[in-house]
């Protein structure tokens, strides 16, 4: 029956059921109808005489047969086709992305203590004959492309290529790269197998939007426990990369104590030596605690420190209990130039405060008579100071901070005052002016560049210097300012300032400049005593009293109130000071084979960038292997040189950068190559994020128990996509043998009747 049907109609019965009849003739349907009507009228006209020669019944039969034949003929001339939807050549695709970052190695108690990566392998590649994986289930429905991803993507085709060794997780980049790689491919569905622990790159939701824009649903198989067991974690350690010798280093530390209510210890260690211990008592208000620890490093050069919480018994994940940081100690002394108008006690005590600290190199230039200066603390290269203040940029830029004591502006030439501005603005140095009868407005600084830089407004008409004794207090918002923080504990610091001895003497100024910050004010009158502001690359401070020495004499010798205040102020002022050779790396801690970019900025003694220096980076790995890498000027930035290094060994690396031909010793710093610990930070499964990703793309969120449901959903989706992507397929009907047989039959029947009735 079927072959006969197929012979008669040229197509199978299914074809007729799955398609629809369409006329594909180029003639418009209306025109075909008019021609058909004309043919009917013509046939009726030709057959009207025959009606008289035969019976009316016979006439109607032959007329009907002729009209049917004409109709059939017109049907065939209309080029009828069966139009059906056919799948596109090349089929559809599904992308499968499997997280292979280190966090996938975590075995969650809620998931039978099996590593997440093992569950992922089974879900995708199957677990023996009994359990088919996703790939096998949809193999006949579409093409699949499988990727492993961590901080980049990699095509895989076997479960052993999933190793959970990735050093970071970048969901955004994984989806972005898959989307880019499969551009132009009819992607029906994307499958993401992950724990959702994203710790680098863009937002996962943004990645989902890329798929949404392409109409690709994302099916997420979420692995891991969203409610992880009790865990202690050092989340973040903010530490300066460099510090000065004998100066206090502050660490801002964030710890997470999920599920812990009992106190625990936080340790600061260098090697096996415990430097500090802090007891943390969770208050139940949240999982995170932020705290500050301070210590004074005593090592030379570069060293790695560790902030660590000893693992508790109930902890399942101890990899996130510590964080390392590298600290480079500057062993050069901070050069300060202090010029004073005459011997006075403020000079003695300020100089004493800095001189006692080996971190400072204080050079004093004290005027004993007009054009006669007493120079203290200078080295053999600073003989020019016997004539007073430096006259060239090369001389002045040797220092990082300048202190102007009670000395009038007329002592300086216009060029020296301009140099002072360049010192702050370009060199990034710090400038401090002290109170006195010949400073600020009274010293005629108002129309000079120094007047422009000061954080206080001054004028020659300011009231005269007052040598009265008065109390000064810290402006409320300034209590936490680095200059004013004489104790780590806020309450202790406030108590120190509340009980600070009075000051003696003040130079009245017009007021505070907009943008300046007042740190210390005179009680009752609110007159500025200490104000600071940034100026260009540097910083400027105005201390309007000339009697801070009274702080020193009024406090017990065992206290460091006066000394600490001045040292902190000077250190704060020089934060922006540029060195002739500055070296940085793009991070302090790397993982193995993570490229290290070393950058050096080289300037001359007058701080102009040098583009033709021969700069060499020397890197020594923990095994003592030394490598010298020439650094190249990067062209896009003046005086900036770069080189790259691929670390192969874990441990502390030493970096020393030198400029060939320079007498100065190389600038040294360190960096650490270590195991990734970031992956184990907050390593619970991120259910909400993954659900939002799935919802945004109209896909689905599944957990391991729902694996089969996910496979079914993916199958349904790729099938539907295959249909949606089909193209129209026309099968002509005009040449069906059945039509010719029918046409022949109609004409033959009509002819036979006419012959029999004698009409032919």
């Amino acid at each position: 029956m079927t072959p006969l049907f197929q012979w008669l109609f040229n197509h199978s019965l299914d074809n007729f059921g799955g398609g629809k009849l369409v006329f594909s003739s180029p003639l418009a349907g209306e025109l075909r109808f008019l021609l058909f009507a004309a043919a009917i009228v013509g046939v009726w006209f030709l057959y009207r005489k025959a009606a008289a020669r035969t019976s009316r019944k016979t006439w109607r039969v032959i007329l009907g047969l002729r009209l049917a034949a004409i109709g059939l003929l017109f049907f065939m001339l209309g080029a009828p086709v069966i139009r059906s939807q056919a799948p596109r050549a090349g089929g559809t695709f599904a992308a499968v992305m499997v997280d292979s970052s280190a966090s996938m190695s975590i075995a969650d108690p809620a998931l039978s203590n099996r590593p997440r990566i093992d569950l992922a392998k089974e879900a995708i590649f199957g677990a023996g004959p009994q359990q088919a994986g996703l790939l096998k289930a949809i193999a006949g429905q579409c093409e699949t492309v499988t990727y492993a991803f961590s901080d980049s993507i990699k095509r895989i085709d076997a479960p052993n290529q999933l190793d959970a060794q990735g050093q970071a997780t970048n969901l955004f980049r994984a989806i972005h790269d898959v989307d880019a790689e499969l551009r132009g491919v009819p992607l029906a569905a994307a499958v993401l197998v992950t724990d959702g622990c994203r710790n680098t790159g863009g937002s996962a939701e943004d990645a989902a939007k890329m798929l949404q824009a392409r109409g690709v649903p994302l099916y997420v198989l979420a692995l891991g426990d969203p409610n992880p067991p009790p865990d202690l974690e050092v989340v973040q350690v903010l530490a300066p990369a460099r510090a000065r010798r004998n100066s206090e280093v502050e660490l801002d530390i964030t710890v997470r104590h999920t599920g812990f209510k009992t106190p625990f210890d936080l340790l600061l260690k260098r090697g096996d030596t415990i430097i500090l211990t802090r007891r943390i008592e969770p208050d139940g208000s949240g999982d995170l605690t932020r705290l500050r620890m301070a210590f004074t490093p005593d090592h030379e050069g570069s060293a790695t420190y560790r902030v660590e919480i000893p693992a508790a018994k109930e902890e399942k994940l101890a990899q996130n209990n510590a964080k390392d940081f590298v600290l480079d100690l500057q062993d050069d002394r901070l050069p300060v130039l202090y010029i004073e108008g005459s011997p006075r006690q403020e000079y003695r005590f300020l100089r004493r405060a800095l001189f006692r600290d080996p971190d400072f190199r204080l050079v004093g230039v004290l005027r004993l008579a007009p054009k006669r200066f007493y120079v203290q603390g200078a080295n053999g290269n600073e003989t020019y100071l016997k004539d007073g203040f430096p006259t060239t940029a090369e001389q002045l830029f040797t220092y990082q901070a300048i202190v102007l004591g009670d000395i009038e502006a007329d002592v300086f030439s216009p060029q020296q005052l301009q140099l002072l501005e360049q010192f702050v603005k370009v060199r990034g140095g710090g400038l401090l002016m002290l109170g006195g009868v010949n400073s600020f407005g009274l010293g005629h600084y108002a129309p000079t560049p120094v007047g422009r830089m000061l954080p206080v407004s001054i004028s020659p008409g300011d009231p005269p210097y007052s040598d009265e004794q008065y109390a000064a207090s810290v402006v409320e918002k300034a209590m936490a300012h680095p200059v004013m923080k004489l104790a780590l504990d806020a309450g202790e610091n406030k108590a120190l300032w509340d009980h600070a001895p009075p000051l003696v003497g003040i130079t009245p100024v017009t007021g505070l400049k907009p943008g300046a910050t007042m740190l210390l004010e005179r009680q009752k009158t609110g007159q500025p005593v200490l104000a600071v502001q940034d100026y260009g690359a540097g910083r400027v401070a105005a201390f309007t009293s000339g009697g801070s020495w009274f702080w020193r004499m009024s406090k017990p010798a065992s206290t460091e109130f006066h000394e600490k205040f001045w040292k902190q102020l000077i250190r704060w002022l020089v934060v922006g000071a540029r060195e002739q050779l500055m070296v940085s790396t793009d991070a302090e801690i790397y993982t193995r084979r993570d490229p290290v970019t070393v950058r050096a900025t080289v300037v001359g003694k007058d701080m102009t960038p040098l583009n033709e220096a021969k700069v060499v980076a020397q890197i020594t790995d923990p095994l003592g292997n030394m490598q010298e890498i020439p650094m190249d000027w990067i062209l896009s930035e003046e005086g900036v040189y770069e080189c790259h290094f691929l670390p192969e060994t874990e441990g502390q690396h030493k970096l020393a950068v030198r400029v060939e031909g320079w007498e100065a010793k190389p600038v040294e710093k360190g960096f650490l190559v270590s195991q990734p610990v970031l992956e184990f930070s907050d390593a619970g499964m991120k259910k909400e994020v993954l659900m939002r990703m799935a919802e945004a793309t109209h896909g689905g969120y599944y957990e391991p128990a729902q694996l089969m449901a996910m496979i079914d959903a993916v199958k349904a989706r790729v099938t539907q996509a295959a249909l949606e992507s089909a193209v129209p397929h026309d099968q002509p009907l005009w040449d069906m043998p059945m039509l010719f047989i029918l046409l022949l039959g109609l004409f033959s029947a009509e002819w036979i009747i006419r012959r029999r009735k004698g009409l032919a």
Partner: protein
Amino acid sequence: MRRTPNQPIRQLPIDSIRDGLTRRGFLRRGGSAMAALAAAGSGLLNISSPALAAPAVKTGQFVFPRLQFTVYDETVDLWNCGPIGDVNLRKKLQELTNINVSQEPKVVHLNDFDEMCRYPFVFMTAEGYFKLPEIEEKNLREFLERGGFVLADDCVYLGKQDRFFRFYVDLIKKLFPNNPMRKIPLDHEIFHCYYDLPQGAPHCQGVPHGAYGLFEPGTGRLMTVATPGDIHCGWMNRFFTPELNEKSIQMGINTIIYFLTH
């Protein structure tokens, strides 16, 4: 910065006021009498040495106070002897340096420690042994450690003894047992920072030990200086040769310059 003044310091004609400024009067009238006498003395002094620095800065006024303490042996000159020497030194300091010197006399006591700390430089002198109560010894040590400075000059009993000097050196040894006073070398800055004194502190009379100093551990800064040669009497310009008087004034100025710069 070593220097030699352009002109020598003249002998100070102060004999005319000598009888009017007795030790007992000073003790009785204290600071107010000293102020009046200082004003009177300055008017009588015929000092023509030019100021070496101008303009003098008026801020942070330097006060030259005398320390009051108890001398318990038979010597004549006690803590308050020869106040005219202080007056003369202040005057010369004002003339010959750009230090803004207060001409007001001032007496401080170790038992009024807070008040004493307002004057970080203190001068003390006497001829004989003296006794400090325990609290004052403690205060003296604290004063020096905070950054205060004491110039102790032996007024020399009978012109050839060193009672005060030795007692002061022993006292400092008691207060700083691990860091006794040592002889100040002749190339030390205190002998050259303003006037050049190649022979060190002038020796007017007494036992020529040379000047002793307490050196601050770590910095080497002088915390206190003891002179056995009666430079204070040199300031009075009445007992010794003009050269010794001049050197005494120079040593006093050098000590104050050293204090203000270290």
